[in-house]
């Protein structure tokens, strides 16, 4: 063990406890880091879009270009492609959703901040509930409750007895599984990603302070930590995109006419 450095303190691997952050003031005021980050994200998004839209010019400046890039991406790439002719009404919600999730996710790799609020299940759960309310409300308002559920549960061109098997599946997948998977996918990706970074960076740190041969091994650990940080960026943006895309898809499904 002498070569491998002093086997002093045990390494405590990162666990779900690392996600339970203490109250900031620690005096019963319910304010934690994720809450603060969510507040911060709304301020960042508001300032960003306000600054981008202020003094909007025909030849856009850098900031306006960035703002219109985000807006245009969600409007054309998600809303218009997926929802079709009636897409414009839903663009504000989808753009808000996308920018909110993307900023909160990227918090996970911004130095000093380095915590993705979406790794606490409550935040994605609330977003999923909002999306669930939106697409069901739209469907019921567009078609009336009876025809909305009829279109949802009884796809045309199926022998009648088979509906006995299919209708419950349709109902469960739309009303129960959709919001559940929406929330869980975002939560699990952020949770796992943060944990992965913790493993490599805290593990690397432990190796480094252990000294001896282990200190040399910390170099690949840190290198992988850096690589995975960039990989996390990809996952974070992708998850925000998927959440927005699926919400748009559900809205489109609620609007679609079956014959």
């Amino acid at each position: 063990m002498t070569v491998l450095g002093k086997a002093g303190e045990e390494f405590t691997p990162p666990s779900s406890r690392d996600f339970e952050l203490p109250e900031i003031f620690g005096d019963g005021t319910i304010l934690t880091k994720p809450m603060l980050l969510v507040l911060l994200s709304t301020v960042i998004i508001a300032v960003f879009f306000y600054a981008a839209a202020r003094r909007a010019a025909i030849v856009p400046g850098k900031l306006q270009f960035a703002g219109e890039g985000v807006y245009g991406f969600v409007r054309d790439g998600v809303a218009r492609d997926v929802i079709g002719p009636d897409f414009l009404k839903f663009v504000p919600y989808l753009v808000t959703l996308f920018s909110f999730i993307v900023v909160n996710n990227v918090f996970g790799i911004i130095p000093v901040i380095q915590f993705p609020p979406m790794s606490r299940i409550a935040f994605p759960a609330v977003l999923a509930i909002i999306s669930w309310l939106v697409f069901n409300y739209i469907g019921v308002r567009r078609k009336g409750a009876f025809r909305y559920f009829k279109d949802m549960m009884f796809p045309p061109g199926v022998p009648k007895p088979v509906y006995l098997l299919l209708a419950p599946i349709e109902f469960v997948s739309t009303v129960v599984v959709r919001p559940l998977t929406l929330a869980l996918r975002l939560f699990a990706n952020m949770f796992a990603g943060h944990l992965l970074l913790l493993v490599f960076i805290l593990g690397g740190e432990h190796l480094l302070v252990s000294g001896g041969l282990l200190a040399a091994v910390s170099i690949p650990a840190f290198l992988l930590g850096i690589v995975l940080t960039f990989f996390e960026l990809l996952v974070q943006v992708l998850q925000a995109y998927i959440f927005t895309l699926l919400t748009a898809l559900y809205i489109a499904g609620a609007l679609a006419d079956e014959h």
Partner: protein
Amino acid sequence: MSHESSGRDANPGDAWTVIAYLLSGLLLWGGAGMLLDRWLETSFFVLVGMLLGGVSAIYLVYIRYGRS
């Protein structure tokens, strides 16, 4: 038949919807089979239910996406 009225093409998000169907089918009818097993003190209805649910879900995916 059932010409796609919205006229939209296949979408990367569709994959997730398909997974939701398969998951729902297995859980729903598998769960029903499990309850039946518990009630009748048998042990094969879970399997029957899951198979039935899986097949139904695949059929449902075919109905929603496979026909054009």
